[in-house]
């Protein structure tokens, strides 16, 4: 095998390779770029700076709201850099080796500026500004309150509980980094860009916009994509730049990001801080939630979703699945001299769940109800659906309570099975839970409400049955491991009554597929799946009309059953889909003029949004001598409605949970105070390996939604959302009474610190388990 076609597997006649000269400083003015030495390096063809290329407009991602300050992201730095790794020049050579030799020989002289490398530094009075137009380095500042009386609720509350958490800066780290191959087609006058992207049409819009071209002068093709996880759902500066260089040189140019570039200059994510307070009634109900959220968004605003994406999602979705009527939030996005952020699987939901689920544990402790019962007191019951939460999100159908109860029982059983042995070995064992909803498949109304200047959300699909009766599906989404070729074929085959192996799926080519928004936010199966189900239904109608004409019957009497079209009750004379397809193309003389001009339909679907829900449970063992944390068991009880393909659902869950384990225990990009990244290879950035991941126990509950054509809900992100919260709660449960950890990734040093700061060591210390305080768990309502 080995027949995948990733960007780096492609070749072109006359291909040259490109390497970037990237900034070594986090904050500086560029006083000189010297190319002379580089041009003498064997194999080097050109050294290009911003001044050598035709003017390239910066990327400018904006929200149309007063709390947002729009900033520009230059595609190539001209006179100033704002993070280490920002591109300053490109070197083009006949091999990557020569291009990198050349890049090393380019001399850049900087006048350094003072860098602000953390939220605290950036928001200090008088701090240097990352962007002159963003005073105080705050680019998003959102305040919202459901009630002016919230402070009185806190004053009168029997309990007030608090939780503070902070989360490490991450890379989504697709195993294939970003990669581009651009060429200029002299015949069509088109720039053709092959790119490892989740969003080909959005890349086309950006490249055309930055280069001042009509969109049809740019063709973007995403071949096989080696993972994305959100990092490739925004437009990279390099995509624009490689296209610009190919146009400038009139030669095919390839750039393949190496791992160091990816970790230094690729989009990052998730460096956030939460301070939460809840007013809790004696019965355990959360009377009010007060939140302060700060996101370190790095130096620039990613296109098109903007650097507001984490801030707004945190503010909007923090209350999660709970029945919390009174909510106040202050959420800010702060720019720093670090690589910009982009969405990463779940965006802010993993951190929001981390904070809120820690808070719920505190509420369970303060009220004596325990972690399960206190959550049950606040989760909507079956008769409360459709449930509208305090932010107006409308959860149409779900199983928050059932999933929690089932997950708690399985997790507690796993804890009991290891607890005794762990104690015998001097280790602390603990269990933790997390409950969440996974809003997915946003449509234009949801994105519009965010006031994005570019509003994604609908999706289109074309379904074409050719003369041989085989089916081609073309969608604007793009699979990078989600198995669209399988699931889309299943959806269309079901509608058309043909075998799935008759259905071919094409995505990722702006010349071939209808305009679409790509694959992100767990939208594909709902949005594109809905569009292709509709297009298929149009074709079924068309085939019924053709069959009715041929059978001399009324259309209402013709049905499609088992792949054949026949008059209801008279299956003897019938046509197969293949026969109808052949007649529609090659025998249209037998048909009236309005029928038989091929069989093709394009439809769209603009979803209202779906809400999968899940409960996660983690069991850990902590070694108090070494601070080492071992995740010994993980339970997922998830509800994504109808599962089109259960194996793919489980694969998404396991992959997401594993990324959650990484962010809880291993992964973090650290910068020093001057903005230098200290984590620049996989030796330092620890991705979970197979031995870091236990066997994951997955259970399903299927509560269909009526908002989609199939009853399925988006579910690609949930695994990553709940896992960090469940693991942090488990670690704190193992330490309970001894100390509290309030950050991820949890390092051994954090365990020591918690133990040092804890009230006292108790040799008899032991987790009470998840079910203490829980009443009547057997009968969820």
């Amino acid at each position: 095998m080995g027949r995948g076609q990733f960007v780096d597997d492609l070749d072109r006649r006359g291909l040259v390779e490109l390497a970037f000269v990237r900034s070594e400083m986090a904050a500086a003015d560029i006083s000189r770029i010297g190319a002379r030495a580089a041009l003498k390096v064997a194999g080097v063809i050109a050294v290009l700076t911003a001044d050598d290329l035709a003017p390239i407009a910066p990327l400018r991602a904006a929200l149309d709201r007063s709390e947002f300050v729009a900033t520009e992201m230059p595609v190539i730095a001209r006179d100033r850099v704002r993070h280490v790794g920002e591109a300053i020049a490109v070197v083009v050579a006949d091999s990557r080796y020569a291009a990198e030799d050349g890049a090393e020989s380019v001399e850049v002289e900087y006048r350094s500026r003072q860098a602000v490398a953390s939220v605290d530094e950036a928001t200090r009075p008088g701090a240097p500004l990352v962007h002159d137009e963003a005073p105080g380095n705050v680019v998003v500042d959102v305040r919202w309150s459901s009630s002016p009386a919230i402070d009185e609720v806190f004053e009168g509350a029997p309990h007030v509980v608090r939780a503070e958490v902070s989360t490490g800066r991450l890379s989504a780290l697709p195993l294939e980094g970003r990669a581009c191959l651009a060429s200029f087609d002299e015949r069509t006058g088109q720039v053709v860009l092959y790119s490892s992207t989740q969003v080909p049409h959005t890349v086309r819009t950006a490249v055309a916009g930055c280069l001042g071209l009509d969109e049809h002068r740019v063709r973007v093709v995403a071949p096989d994509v080696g993972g994305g996880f959100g990092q490739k759902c925004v437009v990279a500066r390099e995509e624009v730049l490689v296209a610009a260089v190919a146009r400038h040189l009139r030669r095919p140019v390839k750039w393949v990001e190496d791992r160091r570039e990816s970790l230094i200059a690729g989009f990052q994510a998730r460096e956030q801080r939460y301070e939460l307070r809840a007013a809790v009634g004696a019965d355990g109900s959360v009377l009010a939630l007060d939140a302060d959220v700060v996101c370190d968004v790095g130096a620039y605003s990613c296109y098109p979703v903007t650097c507001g994406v984490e801030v707004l999602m945190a503010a909007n979705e923090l209350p999660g699945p709970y029945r919390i009527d009174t909510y106040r939030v202050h959420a800010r996005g702060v720019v720093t001299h670090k690589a910009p952020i982009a969405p990463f699987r779940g965006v802010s939901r993993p951190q929001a769940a981390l904070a809120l689920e820690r808070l719920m544990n505190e509420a369970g402790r303060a009220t004596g109800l325990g972690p399960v019962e206190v959550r049950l007191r606040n989760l909507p019951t079956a008769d409360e659906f459709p449930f509208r939460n305090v932010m107006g999100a409308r959860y149409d159908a779900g199983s928050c309570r059932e999933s929690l109860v089932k997950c708690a029982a399985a997790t507690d059983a796993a804890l009991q099975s290891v607890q005794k042995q762990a104690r015998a070995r001097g280790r602390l064992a603990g269990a933790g839970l997390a409950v969440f909803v996974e809003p997915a498949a946003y449509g234009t109304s949801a994105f519009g409400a965010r006031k994005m200047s570019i509003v994604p959300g609908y999706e289109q699909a074309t379904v074409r049955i050719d003369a041989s009766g085989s089916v081609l599906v073309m969608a604007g989404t793009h699979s990078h491991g989600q198995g669209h070729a399988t699931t889309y074929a299943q959806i269309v085959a079901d509608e058309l009554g043909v075998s799935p192996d008759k259905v071919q799926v094409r995505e990722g080519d702006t010349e071939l597929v209808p305009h679409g928004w790509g694959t992100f936010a767990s939208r594909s199966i709902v949005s594109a799946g809905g569009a292709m189900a509709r297009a298929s239904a149009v074709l079924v109608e068309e085939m019924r009309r053709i069959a009715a004409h041929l059978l001399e019957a009324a259309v209402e009497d013709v049905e499609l059953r088992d792949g054949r079209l026949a008059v209801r009750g008279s299956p003897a004379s019938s046509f197969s889909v293949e026969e109808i397809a052949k007649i529609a193309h090659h025998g249209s003389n037998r048909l009236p003029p309005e029928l038989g001009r091929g069989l093709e339909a394009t439809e769209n679907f603009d979803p209202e949004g779906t809400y999968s829900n899940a409960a996660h449970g983690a069991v850990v063992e902590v070694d108090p001598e070494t601070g080492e944390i071992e995740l010994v068991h993980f339970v997922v009880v998830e509800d994504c409605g109808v599962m089109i393909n259960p194996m793919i659902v489980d694969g998404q869950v396991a992959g997401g949970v594993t990324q959650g384990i990484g962010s809880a225990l291993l992964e973090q990009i650290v910068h020093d105070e001057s903005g230098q990244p200290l984590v620049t290879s996989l030796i330092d950035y620890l991705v979970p390996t197979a031995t870091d991941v236990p066997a994951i126990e997955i259970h399903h509950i299927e509560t269909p939604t009526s908002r989609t054509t199939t009853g399925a809900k988006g579910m690609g992100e949930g695994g990553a959302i709940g896992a960090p919260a469940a693991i942090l709660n488990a670690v704190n449960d193992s330490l309970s009474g001894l100390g509290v950890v309030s950050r991820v990734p949890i390092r051994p040093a954090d365990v020591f610190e918690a133990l040092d700061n804890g009230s006292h060591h108790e040799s008899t210390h032991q987790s009470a388990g998840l079910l203490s305080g829980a009443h009547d768990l057997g009968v969820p309502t």
Partner: protein
Amino acid sequence: MNELLTVSFSVNGRRETVTVEPRYTLVDVLRHDLGLTGTHVGCEHGICGACTVLVDGLPVRSCLVFAVQAEDRSIETVESLGSPDELNELQRAFSTEHGLQCGFCTPGFLMLLTAFLAEHEAPTDEEVRGAVASNLCRCTGYQGIVRAACAVRDARLRARAAVGSDPAEDAAARP
């Protein structure tokens, strides 16, 4: 720096001779000079294992080996395994057990586990997981990869048991 050396080795049973700079890594020569793009480059510092190939039957990170070090060696890449119409046992197991999503790490895992299962006839589940931990996958959470390797182990153990304990037959049953 730019002197050239000629090196010969066997790749998937074919004798190959290439003239390259001494600094060229084996993976770059396989991919660029020989057009065998099934072997992928994920990190270029030997952590992720996407570039794993077999050198004289043993799994090797081809990003950490210079092509000139492969002189007279026998190299097997993912292209030596089954074709789309005729997947081998391990490839089929990856497919049925959902051992891949984006597919970028898959060639490295296939070569790693080809060698591991050839060397270990009856590894425990834990030993399989330990072997899988040599490489990185960012999509699957390893569940399907571990299942696939265990499925092949089990199928081979069953095949051996069916053949009996005659060592000659036992060896013949091995694919």
